């Protein structure tokens, strides 16, 4: 994993600093790909907007039954929800373009503030989970591919099938039960102990990523506290995602290992280890990265469940809270924002893949 990463980094440097023609080609590809975010995001925003409007307007959803019909109509008129949906739609698009994702109905909080305050929690959890998933998935996937149809492969396939079949919140509950309630080894909710959290959030220049903040404060006990809180949620999310990575790495490696150039390499007497790394893993990296990018979407979805299970106050946790409060403006804002994040991440992944594989650019 480490060596292959370093290698793709080398390639990047070589390509951009080297031939200018290739750099220009890459740049053009990147620009087109970035422009393609717009239709994707637009479709998702439109889908979410019209689906949400099918429910009715946010005011009726939140207060319906508690207010008289007159009062409701009055409030709806004041907020502009009695106008044609298509007018509201274009108005909403206009707001989005200006970077205004709306204000929550229940507590008057701009959605962008939720994003700023809780987004870092989700980002931190996601990064931990991806690291764990890659640490599990890439080496084990290689093992499975190399020992295809032997016991190692069968064990790993069963493992990845089970991890796919396990609801992430159930795994979280089992971890809470075993490591929290029974063994008392690890905290089972929150991102940090309350005093640590207070110190970290009020510290100057806080990034919101607790681990980074704790390290920059130079406090070992706080760093440890943050890490201990992160173990169970990150491992739950990471294990489930890791199962997908194993399958992915395995299937890609199986086809590269069976290719003619691998056979040619073997015929030239190149060591098996070198073949695995150079001949089989390198070309498999592109598809692996692409699908790994799609996993970001899964991690965001999984984060809603993981965060609810572990009281991890990220975007997903907030989304679940607003959902149970029937605050539809908040739900719409958060979901639309997540849709845009997913589109952007996929774009970045595609560009990374293009850097690794020149065939895609042309």
């Amino acid at each position, binding site marked *: 994993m480490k060596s292959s990463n370093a290698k793709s980094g080398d390639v990047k440097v070589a390509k951009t600093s080297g031939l200018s023609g290739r750099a220009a080609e890459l740049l053009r590809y990147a620009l087109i790909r970035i422009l393609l975010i717009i239709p994707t995001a637009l479709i998702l925003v439109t889908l979410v907007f019209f689906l949400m409007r099918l429910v009715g307007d946010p005011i009726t*959803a939140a207060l319906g039954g508690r207010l008289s019909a007159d009062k409701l109509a009055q409030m709806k008129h004041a907020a502009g929800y009695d106008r044609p949906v298509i007018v509201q739609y274009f108005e909403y698009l206009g707001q989005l373009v200006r970077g205004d994702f709306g204000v929550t109905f229940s507590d008057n909080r701009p959605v962008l503030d939720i994003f700023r305050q809780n987004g870092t929690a989700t980002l931190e959890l996601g990064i931990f989970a991806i690291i764990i998933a890659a640490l599990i998935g890439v080496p084990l996937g290689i093992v499975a591919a190399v020992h295809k149809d032997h016991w190692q492969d069968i064990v790993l396939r069963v493992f990845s*099938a089970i991890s796919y079949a396990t*609801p992430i919140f159930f795994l979280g509950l089992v971890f809470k039960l075993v490591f929290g*309630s029974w063994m008392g080894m690890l905290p089972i909710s929150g991102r940090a102990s309350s005093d640590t959290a207070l110190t970290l959030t009020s510290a100057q220049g806080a990034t919101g990523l607790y681990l980074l903040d704790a390290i920059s404060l130079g406090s070992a006990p706080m760093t440890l506290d943050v890490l201990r809180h992160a173990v169970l949620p990150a491992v739950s999310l990471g294990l489930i995602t890791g199962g997908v990575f194993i399958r992915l790495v395995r299937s890609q490696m199986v086809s590269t290992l069976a290719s003619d150039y691998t056979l040619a390499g073997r015929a030239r007497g190149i060591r098996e280890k070198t073949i695995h790394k150079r001949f089989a893993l390198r070309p498999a990296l592109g598809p692996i990265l692409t699908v790994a990018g799609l996993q970001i979407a899964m991690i965001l979805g999984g984060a809603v469940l993981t965060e*609810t299970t572990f009281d991890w106050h990220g975007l997903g946790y907030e989304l679940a809270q607003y959902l149970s409060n029937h605050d539809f403006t908040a739900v719409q804002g958060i*979901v639309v924002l997540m849709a845009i994040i997913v589109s952007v991440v996929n774009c970045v992944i595609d560009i990374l893949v293009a850097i690794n594989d020149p065939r895609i650019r042309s």
Partner: protein
Amino acid sequence: MTSISNAKSNDQAGVWQRLIKLPIIREIAESNGAQRGLIVTGLSFIVLFVLVALFAPLLAPYGFAQLKGADGATFGVLEAPSAVHPLGTTSTGYDVLSRVLWGSRTALLAVCLGVVLPIVIGVPLGALSGYFRGPLDKVLVTISDAIYVFPTLLLAIVVSLVISGGQAGMWPGLLSAAVALSVVYIPQYFRVVRTEVSRLSSEGFVEAGRAMGAGDLWVLFHEALPNALRTVPLIMTLNAGDAVMTLASLGFLGFGIEPTAAAEWGYDLNKSMNDVSNGVWWTAICPGVAIIIIVLGFTLFGEGVNDVADPRSRKAPSIAKLLKREQTARGAASGAAAKEEAK
């Protein structure tokens, strides 16, 4: 060997030859060791699930919303597993075993609805789009690509809001899971069918149909589509597993079915969150394991079948096997000859 026994074994071989052409059985017959293990394990989990769902009223000791025993005494709350309650009771006082068994019915309904709905819409849409192409095809492809990258669960949440407004009886709850799944899976069926149909429509046998004066729709649905459905079963297994998962996830987030309307595992898992913090295991473990068994069944089955269909993962038959096959073929031929003679 008498000719009669030969003829008999020949008849059996004939039955076997016909059986072997049926789906599933053909896959099992063509599989190698590991693949057969996957298919048979998966299939037995699925069969177990369907049987439990069908016979839940007979199997379950109590009703899913029953709070009192036959003697009129209220069940205890969070009672540990015992003879009266083999898997204990929940924090509300429901019998856990009964809720797990009854829950399989709800899950089975979710699977049926959640698989049929996307297929009924996705497959014809993909076929039409792939056959006629044109601007509508481009639009549909773009939309399905966009939905493909979107987190499934977020879409499910939005859809369940639309359908049930969040609080639900059994049918609204099931329907919202099914429609949410449709939004996610229609694009998947659409993609594979569209690609296959558009590839097939330039092939000889489809063109022959057109040349003979058959209408476009007839050619599409009689010639191209039946041949384009190869990859659909694999998506179906994923789809079925996801149906159980989506229903449970929505239930876990509090968007599920009321406990008095039907037993639903996600709801039970949500309620078990507090129990887990207090070290109580039976309310969480039992419904969770039920979910895993079912989804695992669909996953293993799908993976096994997919593997059999994939020529790369097929093992070359050994020389010994090839020889044996030849011998049996010869035996059958001579058996047939013997039969002729007997007549």
